């Protein structure tokens, strides 16, 4: 399950859903707002994806030891526009350890993009027991430079509901109840998504980032 192939397939840009979670905190007299952004295939979204937001929020709250005055739900955040006059607004990329490790795949990422993401913004990485993100950061000069902006959240209780597994179960007519919301399961059934045919889509296509960056320097 931990092969490069799995990580690479995650970056199929077939659909990208942006989730915003707003955290309002008081630090002295200034308000620091953190918004977590998760990019990915969400093919389909599962309870595990949504757990990531919960874990990240708990971690950031805990680390900063700040009180949460008002927390927007995803529903409200989607409708809100982030105002320009909010200074101290921080946008951080929320991801799993596999995304962090994908920084090391040649031609997957532009180095300057990685620098901008971790340097200017920040990363919240949910890690499982079988990955060692600290070691990975240690082994990368670029990541090491911005280590203060990389927050590692340990997922003590493994909840490994991968979208791949969900698609596999659906193909085989097996139940995926309680792995993703009932409403999503209903949608999938209603539209007949996830069959053997759908899994073959893009089978011989090269991932967009790899097409774009091949030939560029990867160091």
């Amino acid at each position, binding site marked *: 399950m931990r092969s490069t192939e799995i990580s690479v397939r995650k970056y199929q840009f077939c659909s990208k859903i942006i989730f915003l979670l707003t955290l309002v905190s008081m630090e002295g007299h200034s308000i620091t707002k953190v918004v977590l952004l998760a990019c990915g295939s969400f093919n389909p979204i599962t*309870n*595990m994806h*949504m*757990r990531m937001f*919960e*874990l990240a*929020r*708990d971690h950031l709250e805990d680390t900063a030891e700040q009180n949460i005055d008002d927390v927007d739900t995803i529903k409200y955040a989607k409708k809100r526009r982030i105002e320009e006059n909010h200074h101290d607004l921080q946008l951080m990329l929320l991801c799993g350890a596999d995304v962090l490790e994908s920084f090391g795949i040649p031609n997957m990422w532009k180095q300057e993009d990685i620098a901008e993401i971790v340097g200017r913004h920040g990363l919240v990485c949910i890690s499982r027991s079988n990955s060692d993100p600290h070691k990975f950061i240690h082994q990368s000069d670029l990541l090491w430079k911005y280590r203060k902006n990389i927050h590692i959240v340990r997922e*003590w*209780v*493994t*909840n*490994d*509901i*991968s979208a791949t*597994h969900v698609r596999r179960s659906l193909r085989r007519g*097996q*139940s995926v*109840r*309680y*792995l993703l919301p*009932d409403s999503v399961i209903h949608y999938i059934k209603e539209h007949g998504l996830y069959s053997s045919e759908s899994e073959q889509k893009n089978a011989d296509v090269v991932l967009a980032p790899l097409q774009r960056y091949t030939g560029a320097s990867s160091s």
Partner: protein
Amino acid sequence: MAARRVPLVLLACGSFNPITNQHMRLFELARDHMHSTGQYQVVGGIVSPVSDSYGKQGLVLAKHRVAMAELALQSSNWVTVDEWESQQPDWMETVVTMRYHYGRILKEYERSVGMHNNSNLSPQLKLLCGADFLDTFKIPGLWRDDHVEELVGHFGLVCVSRGELQPERAVHESDLLSHRRHNIFHVREWVKNETSATEVRRALRRGLSVKYLLPDSVIEYIHRHNLYTEDSEMRNKSAVLRPLVKQAQEPVKSLDD
């Protein structure tokens, strides 16, 4: 020609303190598996929360555990909650609970099927459990040998493995279980999911989120009744589990005899 299938009901006993998505997954996985054997048609599932007299540390009142299970299973069209076990004055052995439910199921079945078709296969009731359950058979004084024999030999187990546990090994290491291995069905949970009620309670005590680990309605109930605090976890802390007391008092067939 379609082979006739045995109508099967799955019973899960346990604390359900609280019920989680993982508990409900057990039913889904077990149903898929038993169907795929070609021999069974799963016709129902029962969640039977243990009574308060079980004496396990951190156990909140049965009425709450039953209420939460009901909320969780509202959207299920085949699994229900039964509070018979939780309402008995003393802790009930699993086998006794099974006998009670089997009697009900059989009566219900005979009533609906009638006497005109006696070639129908009789319904069966099997105990649905996780892999760690098999290990409890090894705990001295927790199980009566004759009960284990009836549970595994007469009724049967559907055991869903979780995480790193190896249920096949537990069966192999026990002569009693090994002898009845044909009646122990192993279901593999490929999704590594270590969510447990213990972890959920831990998170709740610490004010951490448990969203997406259990249904929203159950989380709401927990907060409304302020269940699962440091105090609730201390309940029964020094108590001995009821089965150990009860069975020590009865003449039990033991290997030491």
